[in-house]
């Protein structure tokens, strides 16, 4: 079915129009931009945390403030940054990659953007109350999050913020699923869809299957706080955790899969070949996502409450699809023609750093090992490698890759290299010491530590790493501001891309494509065209 799109001529875009457009690109940029702003805010909170933890004793903030800071840091990262950004990249790119003119139900997606903005403001609004923001951790376990232990409106604002952002994410996921089902251009079978779009597809499957559990948990928690009677002993706290973690584990894959797809495309593009083992990778993405829905009990190993062996089985099984993805990435580079432009640097950073998170994830999938390191800084290090090494490095690879498409200009290479080098070194300095701290007995979510020994040194190194990361991101922001005004103009395809979005103008107009689409006969249609032309 072909579609023609007609619309009124586009007016100049002011700040309000930027957040009221129905063009999927504007919605994607709005959602992604809001998400990125929250990333920066949460990063500032991290700097505060690292300043406090650099030495024993309370030097910078009180214990109460610290507890709010780490709660809002983690909450902002998950609910307000990583989830929205991981879906926003789909909202922007999936239609371009599948040859569509827009997403399905754009107005619903736009409503979601405003729910995210409102939810984020409400959550952070807790800081303005006399009793402060929520301080229950990003997980808000019952009974800690119940009224006796968390009196005051901060926790209520937090709950409302979480619900609004989760509903927004769910709406976006449905829009994206419908888009992928209905709006692919003829010839674009699912097995010819680019890997970013596949990453978004499986992320959306997990969102629709697991986010309702979070929304239910939050609503029930709110009722429990105000009317009581929901999460009662002996099993109430467990019920909460089952609901929460049923969402809480898939979400870390929701914020991972789109970026592994972006990294896969980056590696293929900058290796000058098509991605190796595409079909097995697609199958393993689906298996990976399904498995990730079945491992949540590994957060509960120490609770005498779940079938530890089942969750150990499913958690350890994750190494199979993860290993397959790495095989595809390395196999793509093998005998390729590698160019080390900025997107590829960050893609390589992803490959090397996420690996640390993945391997330590298998480690803690063994209950007897987890009994020691659970809820310690070892876990903090583990998930920062999957989230920072995975989501954040993947996001920057994607930004450097698609910035020319979105803006029509290239980001500066020199600043990009400094950004990469500093962020990579910072990621090692910041989080490797935490493995040792946790193994030696430092719990997580502690405002203070008073143990003797090398904990202060390790924490100082970690804090230095955090500040190095901070500097690297400042360089990135400088690069963006400069490049938006005076960056080198990019044509439609500055990288010799392989997928359909590189056939659209940079930036793409309303309706995305200004001519007939290239024929789609594989998952790398533009590469096919180039190879055919070279053969002639």
């Amino acid at each position: 079915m072909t579609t023609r799109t007609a619309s009124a001529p586009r007016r100049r875009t002011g700040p309000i129009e930027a957040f009221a457009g129905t063009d999927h690109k504007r919605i994607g940029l709005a959602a992604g931009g809001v998400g990125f702003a929250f990333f920066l805010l949460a990063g500032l909170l991290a700097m505060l945390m690292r300043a406090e933890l650099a030495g024993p004793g309370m030097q910078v903030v009180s214990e109460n403030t610290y507890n709010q800071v780490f709660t809002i840091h983690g909450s902002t990262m998950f609910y307000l940054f990583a989830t929205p950004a991981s879906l926003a990249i789909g909202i922007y790119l999936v239609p371009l990659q599948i040859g569509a003119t827009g997403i399905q139900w754009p107005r619903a997606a736009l409503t979601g953007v405003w729910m995210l903005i409102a939810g984020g403001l409400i959550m952070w609004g807790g800081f303005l109350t006399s009793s402060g923001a929520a301080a229950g951790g990003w997980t808000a376990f019952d009974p800690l999050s119940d009224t006796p232990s968390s009196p005051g409106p901060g926790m209520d604002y937090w709950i409302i913020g979480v619900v609004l952002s989760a509903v927004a994410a769910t709406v976006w996921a449905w829009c994206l699923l419908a888009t992928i089902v209905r709006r692919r251009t003829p010839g674009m079978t699912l097995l010819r869809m680019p890997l970013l779009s596949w990453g978004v597809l499986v992320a959306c499957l997990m969102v629709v299957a697991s986010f309702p559990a979070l929304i239910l948990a939050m609503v029930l928690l709110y009722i429990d706080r105000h009317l009581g009677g929901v999460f009662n002993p002996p099993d109430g706290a467990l019920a909460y955790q089952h609901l929460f973690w049923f969402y809480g584990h898939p979400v870390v894959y929701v914020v991972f899969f789109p970026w592994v797809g972006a990294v896969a495309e980056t590696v293929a593009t900058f290796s000058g070949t098509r991605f190796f083992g595409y079909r097995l990778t697609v199958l393993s993405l689906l298996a990976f996502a399904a498995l990730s829905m079945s491992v949540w009990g590994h957060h509960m190993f120490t609770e005498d409450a779940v079938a530890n062996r089942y969750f150990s089985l499913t958690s350890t099984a994750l190494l199979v699809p993860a290993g397959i993805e790495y095989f595809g990435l390395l196999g793509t580079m093998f005998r390729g023609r590698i160019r080390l432009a900025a997107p590829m640097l960050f893609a390589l950073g992803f490959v090397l750093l996420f690996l640390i998170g993945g391997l330590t994830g298998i480690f803690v999938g063994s209950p007897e090992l987890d009994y020691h390191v659970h809820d310690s800084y070892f876990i903090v290090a583990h998930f920062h490698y999957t989230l920072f090494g995975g989501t954040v490095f993947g996001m920057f690879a994607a930004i450097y890759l698609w910035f020319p498409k979105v803006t029509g200009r290239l980001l500066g290479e020199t600043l990009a290299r400094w950004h990469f080098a500093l962020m990579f070194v910072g990621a090692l300095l910041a989080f490797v010491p935490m493995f040792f701290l946790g193994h030696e007995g430092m719990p997580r979510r502690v405002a203070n530590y008073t143990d003797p020994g090398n904990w202060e040194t390790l924490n100082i190194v970690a804090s230095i790493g955090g500040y190095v990361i901070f500097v690297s991101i400042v360089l990135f922001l400088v690069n963006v501001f400069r490049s938006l005004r005076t960056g080198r103009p990019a044509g439609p395809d500055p990288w010799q891309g392989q997928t359909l979005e590189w056939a659209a103008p940079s930036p793409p107009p309303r309706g995305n494509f200004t001519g007939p689409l290239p024929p789609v006969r594989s998952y790398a249609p533009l590469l096919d065209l180039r190879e055919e032309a070279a053969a002639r």
Partner: protein
Amino acid sequence: MIDTRQNYDDLFSVYWPIMLGVLVVIWVLTIVFVIRYRAGADRPLRRASESKLEYVYAGSLACVAVALLVITFNAMSDDPADSHPATLAGAKLPAGAQPVQIKTTAAKWKWRFDYPDYGIAQTAVGRAPARLVVPAGVPVQFEQTSIDVIHAFWIPEMRFKKDAFPGRVHRFVLEFPKPGILSGGKCAEYCGLDHSYMTFTVRVMEPGEFRAWAEANRGKRQ
């Protein structure tokens, strides 16, 4: 009897080399590929898929997963501290054993250790660590609960942790191999304001010394 630390170290000694080995292999391969396969060289393109190789590789990954699961499940099966809802720790003790009984109560933000056989109750004063006294080399049976929010009992030197839930009793048995002081006891489940200060130390005594201590402190509650 399980030595939890030894159990952990045995598992660790298998997991750690595998993790390190995989890390090194992938880092080296990545760096070597980037250096060797730079653009500019005239090189035939490789195929986009090698099905047999891929499936053999996937199969080997599955074998690794199975091997890790076998040693993990083995490490769990004899451990009385590793409970499944269907098994109580006490059932794993050798016949005729008379473990020392300790009731652990977690509250915001102190630990309390009760010795029902001796009428002793010990808790912390201010932010000082609470003191847990145990005999070496014999089973010690714990019954653990919380009176408010979720806490977690963690002795890093023993590589052991168990949550304390309100309204539930967790039973586990530990054996402390050698006399000495274990100073790292912590609460490992965030429980609010003074979570950082909810600590305890473990004094491990020879069984004879422990009995003497228990008798000397009979009925003392602090």
